[in-house]
């Protein structure tokens, strides 16, 4: 059994409007047998944190196109996107690039 994973989530660029305007969330993911990966994290966020309009954040398995995801300040494309396995104290940032200019 893996230990519970504590991650720090941040939402920016307008994405926070879907989360009641709250930009920072410290969450602890419950322990489970396999390590947490990004795909499961998205499902968890959708179920527990997302307050409205899920289709504006998540699309199918992944985030909606236009939302930039940074894992520990690095582009998630370099970390394996959805397959990245979360470690304790990771910092995940979701920035919407669709809003404003």
């Amino acid at each position, binding site marked *: 059994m893996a230990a519970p994973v504590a991650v720090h989530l941040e939402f920016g660029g307008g994405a926070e409007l879907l989360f009641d305007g709250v930009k920072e969330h410290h969450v602890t993911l419950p322990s489970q047998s396999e390590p947490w990966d990004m795909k499961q994290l998205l499902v968890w966020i959708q179920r527990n944190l997302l307050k409205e309009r899920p289709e504006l954040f998540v699309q199918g398995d992944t985030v909606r*196109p*236009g939302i930039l995801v940074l894992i520990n*300040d690095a582009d998630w494309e*370099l*970390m*394996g996107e959805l397959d990245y396995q979360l470690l304790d104290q990771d910092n995940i940032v979701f*920035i919407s690039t669709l*809003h*404003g200019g």
Partner: protein
Amino acid sequence: MCQVEEEYHEQLERVDTPSASKKCVKCKEELAAVVIRAGDAYCRKCFRESFIHKFRAMLGKTRVIFPGEKVLLAVSGGPSSCSMLSQVQEGVSQNAHKKLRFFPGIVYIDEGGALGQCKEMRQKTTSELCDMFRSTGFPFYILPLEQVLDLPGSVLTPSPPSDQPGSVYKAAVDLFLQSGDSSSDGKAEEQECVSLPAVQESHTRLLQQLIGSAQTLTAKQDLLNTFRQHLLVHTARTRGYSKLMQGDSCTRLAVKLLTSISLGRGAQLAQDTGFSDCRYGDVTVVRPMREYSAKEIAYYNHMFKVPSVVIPNLDTKMPDKASIQRLTQNFVTKLQADFHSTVSTIYRTGEKLQTAGRDSSAAEDAKRCVLCVCGLDTAAEEASALQATLISEQLSQSSVKPEPPASVGQCCSSERPCGGAEGTGDCCRSSRDHEATDLRSLLCYSCRRTVRDMSSVDCLPQYVLSVAQRRQNRSAMKEQISEFLLDDADENN
């Protein structure tokens, strides 16, 4: 080598997925932190350098901004414009390598009235931005969009550019350097610290009526953009700024390009999406952020702590198909996710567009659209697509729309008094129709579509209506005396 009984023992090539251990493509030393375009991974330092360099290179290669000029930065609070602000701030600071040599000012237009935001919300956003602007040290102006109702008609007429030109860029730079670097005087200008000027309720209501009179979200957004642009240009003119910088990113311009085509603005594409837009004559609109994709800007803002404020606008949280603009944005963004060169391809295609050269001369304003101030593109020649549209429109109009009760005022506004007696319902209604149709003849194709969407043309601000009226009168008068006018051809006899 190729042989008959050859066997391939090596593995087939695999797609090279970038991994965490990938090195920066530029310095090849540091670990890569962000992927720009398709597969170009940069480390933080190289990314920052290339970001800053791109801005300077853009200004340098286009040579549109002369040293010592006053440039107004239109900041909406969003990521691109705040990024632009921080680039300018950095570029103008004393210790910058190859300092930027113009004097910036900042303007922010508060659109909360049009969106129905409450006063406290507007005040809060404004004060946040106020603090941000104050820390830059540049003069700044915060204007509510309601002020657009009080604009003079001159904003719709392109003025001839002030004596700038003729001087070649290089000569201007040399002259500036010779006269001594007086840039330190720039900061001595008093910072206009204004809190949001008190907005009258009635104005806000009028503005809401104006935006509300458009039936579709597409038309609403179009109107909002037009009036915002008018207010920006007016501010630049009255405060003595000859350039207006807007922070449209590459992604946004690609979306705008496709949207413009969908809206019927094909003829004005070059001005809407090009680097510099000279339709207003003395104020040139430049777009220095046009080579940055939205992702680059978002990443830079996050990593280097560029403050920005999220301000909801008309299409926040709207469904995908709510407006043409929104739909196009979704289309381009989704396509970009799978095909990383989408945005840059659209952008490069747009770069090749040029105006036909008509607008560079101070064209008679009779040939300009009353709303967007671009050249009219509605000469419906024989067998053109536009003529076909007009004919089918006429044929499909089965009944006249019931008019709201006509106001007795403007009935005999044209030179010729109308045939019927004043004050009767028929006369007023027919001349109202006459006016509505005549306004359309002063608009370009896409503005016509937008105005057609409005339930009542009278909601347009006074300056638009009065300029339209004046132009109509002028052209009617010209028609009356046309046989007495000397043509150019006659003079050459």
